[in-house]
Each structure stands twice: as C-alpha cells, then as structure tokens.
C-alpha cells in the first residue's frame, strides 16, 4: 500500500514545475496523453500516471521506471493535452532529476539507451560533430552487441551513407570550455538545491 504524506510542500512537484515550465497540478487525468503516446505501451508508468506520481511526490518510483527514458519527445501528447501541459518537458525534468539523483531503472535496455546518449555527447565533446558510423560502432561495441545491424552496415557504407572520415570543428578548445562551464553550472544548481534542502530541514 502507498502511504501518502502531507503534500502541502511537495518539493518534487515544485522542482518539476520549475524545470518544465508547466504546472503539473493542471493535469486532470483525462488520459489523452496515454492514448496518444506511441510508446506508452512500452512504459512501466504511463504519462498520465507519471503526472499523478509527481502530485504524490513519489520521485523514487518514477526514477526507477523506464517511462521518462522511453519518451521520444515527439510532442504529440502536448499538442493534444486539453490542459496545455508540456508533457515531454515534464518527462525531461523528471529524467534530469533522476540523473542528478543518480538513480537508473534496473534494466539493460535503459542502460543501453543511456550509454547511447553518453557516447553521443562524448563524441560531440571530442569532435564538435557527430558521426553515425562511429556512433553505431562504438555503441554496439560498448553494449556488447557486436553483430547488431551488421547486415545494414556494409550496405550503408557501400551506399556512402556512413562515412569513415571524421572532421573536427576548429574551435575545439572553446567547445571543451563550453562543456566544462555547463557541467559547473549543473553542479552549482544541484549544490544550491541541496543547500536549500538542508536549510528547510
């Protein structure tokens, strides 16, 4: 049974609202998002339920679910939401909080999705640009699925779809700095948040 605490000060809700720019309290559970979402069938907690969990301040439950990682940010839901909630950005907010809290769903799928994004970003960091082939290769290697899409690769390469050449951007230094500074920003925000948390406690 889920035991509900006094929700007068729902920190989780406040954070999500602040990050997403929408007010989750507007949700009246009509379910149009679920019926819209192309992947809601794959989600452990459907978008409609996500909204409710946020209202109930059940952050861990959400962090541990695959839902926010499966969101494709296709925005079909927000285009149809009668209460004009930017659901993808709510999902994003929850995901970011999960990353900050460093809680991942215990599923290889999610791990591989996250891996993919990590590789992606690290590549940008290294080259300033992205190369599908290297991305695919690196991803498959790191996730130990050496032969995934092996059928596609040669054909794709043959058709010049996937290139071996890799151009770098000139101002890589600047880009590195950009990465570092943003990292700092993120951590600063977290620290201040934690600080405020301690104060409130």
């Amino acid at each position, binding site marked *: 049974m889920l035991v509900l605490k006094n929700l007068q000060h729902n920190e989780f809700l406040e954070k999500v609202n602040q990050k997403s720019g929408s007010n989750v309290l507007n949700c009246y559970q009509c*379910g149009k998002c679920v*019926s819209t979402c192309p992947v809601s069938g794959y989600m452990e907690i459907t978008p409609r339920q996500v909204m409710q969990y946020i209202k109930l301040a059940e952050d861990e439950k959400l962090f541990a679910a695959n839902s926010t990682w499966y969101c494709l940010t296709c925005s079909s839901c927000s285009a149809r939401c*009668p209460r004009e909630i930017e659901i993808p950005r709510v999902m994003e907010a929850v995901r970011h909080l999960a990353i900050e809290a460093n809680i991942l769903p215990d599923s290889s799928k999610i791990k591989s999705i996250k891996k993919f994004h990590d590789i992606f970003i690290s590549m940008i960091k290294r080259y300033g640009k992205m190369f599908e082939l290297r991305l695919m290769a690196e991803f498959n290697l790191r996730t130990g699925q050496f032969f995934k899409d092996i059928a596609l690769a040669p054909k794709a390469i043959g058709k010049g779809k996937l290139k071996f050449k890799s151009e770098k951007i000139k101002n890589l230094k600047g880009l590195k700095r950009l990465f570092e500074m943003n990292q700092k920003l993120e951590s600063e925000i977290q620290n201040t948040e934690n600080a405020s948390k301690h104060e409130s406690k």
Partner: protein
Amino acid sequence: MARVGVFVCYCGANIGDYVDVPKVVEEIKKIKEVRFAFDYKYMCSDPGQTTIKDAIIREKLTSVVVAACSPRMHEKTFRKALLEAGMNPYLLEVANIREHSSWVHQKDKVAATKKAVDLIRMAVSKSIANQQLHEISVPVTKRALVIGGGIAGIQAALDIADAHIPVLLVERSPSIGGRMAQLDETFPTLDCSQCIMTPKMVDAASHPFIELMTYSEVIELQGFVGNYKAKIKRKASYVKFDACTGCGACWQKCPVKVDNEFNFGQGKRKAIYTPFAQAVPNKPVIDAIHCTMLTKGKCGICEKVCEKGAIDYKMTDEVIEREIGAVVVATGYDLWDPKPYEEYGVGRYKDVITSLEFERMVSAGGPTNGLPIRPSDGEVPKTVVFLKCIGSRDESKGISYCSKICCMYTAKHVMLLHHKVHDSHSFVFYMDIRANGKGYEEFVKRAQVDTASTYLRGRVSKIYQKGKKLIVQGEDAQIGQQVQIEADLVVLANAIVPQKDAPELARMLGISYDRYGFLSEAHPKLRPVETTKAGVYLAGCCQAPKDIPESVSQASAAAAKVMGLFASDRLKKDPMVSTVLIENCSGCQNCIPACPYGAITTEEIPIMRGSKDLRTVAKINEGVCQGCGSCVAICRSSAAMLSGYTDLQLMKEVIAL
C-alpha cells in the same frame, strides 16, 4: 441655527465595553450645533426609538445623528423612526461606531473612544448639510418584452400572459420552438420533445395576452425600468402572414432546393419554407438569398399557386416601436464548432458527426425518419463511439467550463441508438459522469446496464479512416491501457456556447456579459435571474448552460419578477440620485460618457429668463440614475449634484475632523 440630536448606543456590551460612551456624549455636547445628546443601551429597541422620536419633537431637532452599528444595518430602522416623528427620514446620519470602532479597536479604549467622537463629529457636521429628500416614483408600462422563442422564452411569455399582462414575444427565426424543437426525446424520462413542446408553442401563439413576432429582431432599447421603448425589426418574409393559411401549396411547388439548416444540412428544404412541420406560426417565409424570383426575377411560382395572394415580392423590412415595462432575455445558446479537433478528422470524415446532428437523425421527424445512418454511405451503424467533453473542459482547443448537459444527452443517445438499432453497440468515452439532477444518476445507470453499452474513462487521441471503418484510438484509464475501436459512426458531444451575437445584444440592452459571452446575472446566488439593469431579466441558456427543467424554472422565475415589478402602478425609487443645477451647467457634456446608465441627455434652455437664444445643458433622468455620483465628480462647474452625497455634505464631513 441647526439643532442636531445625537443618540449614542451601547449596543449592550458591544460598544459599551470598548468605547467610553458617557465620555463620548460629554465630548459631543461641546459641539455647538448639538442641541441634545443622549446614550442608551439599545437604540434600535422600541424604547430607544421612542426617545429619538420624543427628542425630535421636544427639542425641535433639524437633524438626527445615531451613533451605533453600521448604517448598512439599521439606517432604514432609524429613518422610519424619524418619519414617525414627522421628520424627513433623510435628515438622519448614522455614525458607525461599532463595526468601525468598538469592534476593531478592542485593545485600546482611549483610541476607540477618540475615534468614536470623531466619527460622530463628522456625522453631525454632515447632517447639518442634509436636505429633505422625497422618494421618487415613476409610472410603469405594463407590457413585457420576451426576446427569444425557445422553451425558456415561451414559458416566460405564457406565465406573464397568464397574469393578464400583455407580452410581446420576439423570435428571429421563422418559427418559435428553439433548440428543444430539434430534440427527439428528452432525459431523464424519454418523453418526446415535440409532444410536450408543441402544445406550449400553440398556446403561446394563440394566447390573448401574447403578441407573437417571429422572423423579427429587437434592434434598440431606450429608457429605464418600467418605461422602456423597444424598436423591433420585422424582417421581410415576402409572405403576408394575415392572408396566408399555411396550406403549403407554395413550398410543395417551389423548385429551389436548399440545404436544411434545421437538420444541419441533412436533407433539403425549399426557398419558401417553414423550418419544420410543426412550425408555429405555420406560415412560410421566403429565403431571399436562394429564391430565384428575388435574386434573378425569374420563377414566381409560389405567387401563382397561392390562392390567397399572400406572396408579396415587394415586401421590405419594417421597424415597429413598442412601449415596454420589462424585458426577459431568453436568446438561448449555440453549439461549439469542433473543427479545432483535427486529430478527430472533423470535416475530413463524413461519419464523425456532432450530437445534435445525431439527435436530428434519430428524431422521428428528422431527415432519416428516425433511423441513424452513416452519412458517408447511408448504412446503419452497428458500432457507435460517443465522445464527451468536445470543446468543454478543454482550455487548449475549446472553453474551460463544463457544458453540463452532455453527460445526460449522451446517455440518452446511447439508449435511443439501442432502441432504434437493437444489434448496435455503443462505446462512450468520458472523463467524469456528471448526473446531478432529479432521476439523472438512475438514468445514466439504465443507459449503462440496460443497453449493455461500454463506458470507458479517458479521452480519445485520434480517429482515422481504415477502409470503411473509423479507427478510434483512446485510453481506458481503468486498466491504464491504450484501446482501439473499429467504429461505424462517431458522435461528438460538442460544447454549449453563447450565441455569437450575445455581446452585441448585451451592449444593445445595456447589460453585462462574461468572458465567454454568457449574459451576467446581478448576483450569482441571490439574484440569479436579474441583470444589473433594473427591469431586465434572464432566462435559459443565454446566461449559462442549462437543461430543460432549469431553463423552464428560470423562465418562470423571471416571469414572477416581471409580475412583481408590475404589481404597483408606480415604481418607488431611492431619492439619492443626481440632479443638475442648470444655472451652473456649462454644457460641456463630460458627464454623459461618465454615466454608466446613459441617464444623462441634454436639453436646450434660454440663456436667461425670457431670452430666445438657447444654450445646451445636461439633463439627468432620475428614473434611470442609480446614484453612483460619477457625473458629480467629473463635473467642472459643480452643476451635477448627488442628493444625500452633495459636495457640501462630504466636504463638511472631511473638515469636521
């Protein structure tokens, strides 16, 4: 020399405990205009009032100040006392030393006392400037104007007329009956709308006290409560109603076919037509846009076939003027256009229809004689999906309010479908079921159980064509899963919205309306049928979404209000209204736009007595004036004056400190 009497009340302990009353009296006695000051436990009690009356006579008082509770509480009481002592009641001033002193400064008796003294001093000073005022009384024209011939309008008209008060019932379409005439059966009893409606329509048309004006519109309302002047435009019908017998020869012979708007374009009507079979009056009008005789001058068949010679192509609009005492507005509602729901393919898929289109289909007198069909191929639908809250409760695409009746009529549609097509099945997508009326919840239960229909909680996200079927994609929130239905027909319960021209009407009548365009009542709870304009009342859906019982009861309520208004031959009115000192008036006319009630006009007066040269000055209609004083504050030459709150009175109050 003014002789003011001051009466300070202890109000038991309410004032006595926190204000040093004897001290107050002692202070007040120092004011030289104060002839008599006296304190008493309960001034509002009989003995209290008696002391006031006696003092008035004994001390020949010129004005009276009662220091007690808020004037909003007992001003009337004490005014009566003055009257009974033969004194003009408006020579009274009340100093509010309870709500404004003893109750709000309970911790500081000295300050409270001091304040009480000041408040009384101010009242005394003002009362000296008070003048004798006399209740205004205006005559009443005992004729009511009812705008709109739907069920609300008809009900109001009948109730008023039954009290032997003449009623002018104005309807802009060719027949009365309104929306209700379009309905098949009505919830929660499933009695046939026509059967209960038609008798009332006939009564209204034949009632000796009702003057029915169809195909007409109210275009102007002048004047004030009890004394309105209404201008009504009678649109050219090209048919002499007095001559026409409604035999129908004309519309049978008319060659021009037009989409039937009464059935939402399902089926055709002629260019000369009555909107529906039971129309009242049962006399046709010619639709000037489509009639070839009026557009091209060709045809003229109806004229030939009409034995009574009732057709008159030369007819023009005429404006009729009537004196009116009160107005009941019952202009009804419109339906929200669901086009913004692109995801439902509204407009792209023929078989996605609105609730009222479905209503016409299943109604016996409708285009398909009561058989529901798929507009695309005319086949009888077996699987029908009903979607609720289309436009309602949807800030993004529609409006944020609940349309109130959709839950009920959808349940009704489910039943009607089941009755007409036994092997059909209904799916209903809902967010909440709102069945808060007598017998409503039971009705919904019947719809769910007796017809074995499937109610699904959730909103549909997408509808698309696959072969002949419509794929309806939604969520069943109970099981928390996406569901898909292969439907033959989809019915959208689209929202109730105000008539498009409701704001125009409101401005013309001088009443207010809300952000949606619904006409506003004077008070949401205690004055639900009145408007802020005296003598103008509301009935039915022009004020907010309502079902039939509510519309009818509000109509009767409005009728009762009209009767109450007409009960006396003259209307009494608070004399605290504005007047113009014409000798001061410069004729700048700044006051005219300042008046919220349009009570101010101008008049020409001689520059000086006997002179022929005229000048323009403001003229205030005390019947219309509500006494806000905007004109007074805006007047540069202090010509406008608000009785009871004159500049002198307020100024004296200000400087009395």
